[in-house]
């Protein structure tokens, strides 16, 4: 099995659904970071067979809500002095604002850059309800 360097201080974004690693790499603009970054694709996973992993040295500040919508399988390890000091699993946030736009063309927020609705996760967990028009934008249609 491939040996990959572990990091001293920073974060490990683990259990990423295979294929999403590259997406996270680009959405978090990791190419612009001056610190060491490791993107591991199709690593072995005891949980799911395969997984992607992203490790970032000297970096802690992750947008958890954003990652939760992007891939709710993710777990995040916070590393200090080579030890895990905190572990977080992301999940679909109950409320989000500013990340997603409403997909209902009849909504007042549609086509309006300055208007950002608050979205509430609906009980069927298949999407988010817009605070303005109350239409559900399904998770499948949320492209980050």
């Amino acid at each position, binding site marked *: 099995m491939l040996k990959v360097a572990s990091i001293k201080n920073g974060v490990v974004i683990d259990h990423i659904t295979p294929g999403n690693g590259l997406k996270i790499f680009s959405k978090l603009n990791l190419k612009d970071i001056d610190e060491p970054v490791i993107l591991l694709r199709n690593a072995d996973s005891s949980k799911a067979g395969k997984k992607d992993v992203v490790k970032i040295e000297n970096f802690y500040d992750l947008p958890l809500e954003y990652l939760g919508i992007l891939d709710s399988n993710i777990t995040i390890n916070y590393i200090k002095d080579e030890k895990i000091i905190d572990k977080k699993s992301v999940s679909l946030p109950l409320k989000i604002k500013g990340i997603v736009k409403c997909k*209902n063309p*009849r*909504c*007042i*927020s*549609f*086509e*309006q850059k300055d*208007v950002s*609705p608050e979205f509430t996760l609906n009980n069927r967990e298949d999407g988010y309800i*817009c*605070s*303005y*028009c*109350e*239409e*559900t934008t399904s998770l499948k249609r949320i492209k980050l």
Partner: protein
Amino acid sequence: MKLNCKHLCHSLDLSLEELDYLFNLAKEMKKNPAKYSNSLAGHILGTLFFEPSTRTRLSFESAMLRLGGQVLGFSDSDQSSAKKGEGLWDTVRVMDGYCDIMVIRHPKEGSSLLASEYSQVPVINGGDGGHQHPTQTLTDLFTIVTEKGSLENKNFAFVGDLKHGRTVHSTLLALARYKGNKFTLISPSELKIPAYLREQLTKMGAEFEESTDLKSAISDADVLYSTRIQKERFFNEEDYLKLKDNYIINNCVLSHGKKDMLVLHPLPRVNEISIEVDSDPRAGFFRQAKLGVYIRMALIHTLIKGGHTNA
């Protein structure tokens, strides 16, 4: 009574207790108009109608004038910019310096809620696209409580296009909050209530059944609520012509209903209710339009003054 909400954007913004308060105040205003005829003197209602709706606008204007207030507004804004939502907040910010309360009609869904975030004065939603029309719901409830004595333990039949037109949906949801009501939902199978509403009604524990046959479904109804079936909703003319006649309320249909059944319609009607029905005492839709003025009076008064104690 002070309402919990400063604005009225959604029909569920009001609690049952607050609704009750508004019904009682509207009733008192109807009984004793002189007492309130000057109570909002010096106050101005702004009417921001980004799309025309003569009926709603006149009902609000009548309400404000009957309270001794004045009205100021427009009903013919540039349609194309309204459709894009442009200029809504600028207009709202300017108008809130010109008036003490405003009613907004706008084609975009959620426009009133957005406006309420910018406005210093109370905003009333006068219809935001196909989304909400809370004062229509208030009118419906007030009419039923006035004519039937209460909003509980009644059989309601809704007929027409139950799929579109969310004013019906919000009246249905509002009635489902009261105890012991049963609903019969009569429509062509293509125009049944949407899945989310069915789910919501089930979750609220509402008792309802769906039917396609008007005559047999209304025999138990205390209230028959009719809505428009619009031609645009059908794929072809033939289907429309075939279906629409099965849902027209005429004297023959009424003969299947109870002697004291109340027939309501938000108006304007196209041909869902025959003119011959108008002379039947059960036809309540013109009384409904009139009662809509009193409930709007109660609402405007309460949002501005916090109730009749300050009258």
